[in-house]
């Protein structure tokens, strides 16, 4: 167990980080992600408010849809990344645990009169069910309702008498979803899912933070504080697709200038030989060993069986196939720019 964003969380369960990662990719992983924050926005002007605050296009979202979005500051730096759910009468926004207070402060400081911003984090429990057999497992406890829910949409369903919001989204690259329900039902639902897996012969295991990290990393998803963050803009991190320049949003003009001038650095994937690259390892030019960049994250990837890093390098060195090096324990180790993601998410195949 280790402290994470103010919570005591398992880095891994007795199964171990590598096996937990593999279980999620071959059957079902359960993630206790209650540390995440949930903010509900409603009331007068809420649609315009949300649209003006996040980078992605949201005004065309119909009830039930869920979409990835970035929260930017005026300079175009990423304050947080979010999942935005359009509900019947409100906006349900999932935020990173470590940024919850700051995000709420940011939103409240810009909220117009009549807007309602509720922090639903403490009363809401959140778990993720992810893997190729996740939908089968969820169908078995929801009377077949979950398989009818399309990717990137959500629906209120009932599981063992508990009403919950199921969003067919996730942070692993596997099929499955994220469940939001009253906190007092957490243990009951968690144990029910594990027991159901056993009953049906579906391998189901709890997954810790280390495997959560390697799963999202392989699938090309960012972690705030690493690939995106308060000193990083979406253009250099490869998230121009999450920015809707046809609408007004905080940070838009700053980003437009960056798009026009071209970003000063680019996020690339590196396949490294001879050690485990990690955050803050220097990236070197292979020729003369000069420092050209830095790793934002790095680890062993159990599914693709590589030692890989996400790193910021000058745009001219960002082409796939470029030979570079990563400094690990003061020694340059060969690194090759590779295509991202390392593992193509199930819903993109």
């Amino acid at each position, binding site marked *: 167990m280790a402290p994470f964003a103010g919570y005591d969380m398992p880095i891994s369960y007795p199964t*171990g*980080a*590598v*096996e937990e990662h593999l279980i999620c990719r071959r059957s079902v992983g359960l993630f206790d992600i209650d540390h995440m924050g949930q903010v509900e926005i409603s009331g007068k002007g809420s649609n315009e408010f949300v649209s003006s605050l996040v980078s992605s296009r949201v005004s065309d979202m119909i009830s039930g849809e869920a979409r990835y979005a970035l929260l930017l500051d005026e300079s175009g730096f990423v304050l947080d990344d979010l999942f935005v759910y359009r509900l019947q009468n409100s906006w349900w926004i999932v935020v990173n645990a470590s940024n919850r207070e700051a995000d709420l402060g940011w939103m409240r400081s810009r909220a117009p009169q009549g807007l309602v911003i509720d922090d639903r984090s403490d009363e809401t429990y959140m778990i993720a069910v992810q893997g190729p057999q996740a939908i089968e497992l969820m169908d078995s406890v929801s009377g077949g309702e979950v398989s009818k829910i399309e990717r990137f949409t959500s629906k209120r369903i009932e599981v063992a008498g508990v009403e919950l919001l199921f969003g067919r989204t996730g942070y692993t690259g596997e099929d499955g979803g994220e469940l939001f329900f009253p906190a007092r039902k957490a243990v009951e639902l968690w144990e029910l899912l594990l027991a159901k897996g056993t009953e049906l012969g579906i391998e189901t295991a709890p997954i810790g933070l*280390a495997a959560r990290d*390697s799963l999202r990393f392989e699938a090309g998803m960012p972690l705030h504080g690493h690939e995106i963050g308060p000193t990083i803009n979406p253009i250099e991190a490869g998230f121009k697709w999450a920015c809707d320049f046809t609408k007004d949003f905080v940070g838009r003009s700053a980003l437009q200038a960056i798009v026009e001038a071209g970003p000063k650095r680019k996020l690339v994937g590196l396949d490294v030989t001879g050690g*485990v690259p990690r955050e803050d390892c220097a990236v070197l030019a292979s020729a003369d060993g000069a420092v050209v960049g830095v790793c934002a994250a790095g*680890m*062993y990837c159990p599914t693709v069986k590589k030692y890989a890093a996400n790193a910021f390098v000058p745009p001219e060195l960002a082409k796939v196939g470029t030979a570079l090096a990563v400094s690990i*324990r003061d020694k340059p180790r060969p690194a090759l720019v590779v295509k991202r993601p390392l593992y193509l998410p199930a819903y993109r195949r």
Partner: protein
Amino acid sequence: MKIDPNCRYRSSHEYARKDGAEIVVGISDHAQESLGDIVFVELAEVGKTVAQGDAIGVVESVKAASDIYAPVSGTVVAANGELAGDPALLNKDPYGRGWLVRIAPSKAAEWEGLLDPAAYEKEAAKE
């Protein structure tokens, strides 16, 4: 915690086991369990002369890298080539197939000075 009765140990959790004229070096079961899943191992080159306590390698687990220290002085005569393709051997069989290096010892008395199995077990249990 599995303790190999034929080994002697360092407080830093390396073991040393006599095998003929050589010393087999690895990390204890307690160490592999504390480290978690091991994903990469870097070892000193064959032929390297080391003093007791010198770094002879690095074991990388999912979240951190740990230095490995020579339990005895001597020359590295072999490094476990299997670990490049299967670093998990350290977790699965730390005293057997997960051995790290073999050292030709230069100071025979050093082995006696290491922690005996009972003493190591007592120390490790405190952690």
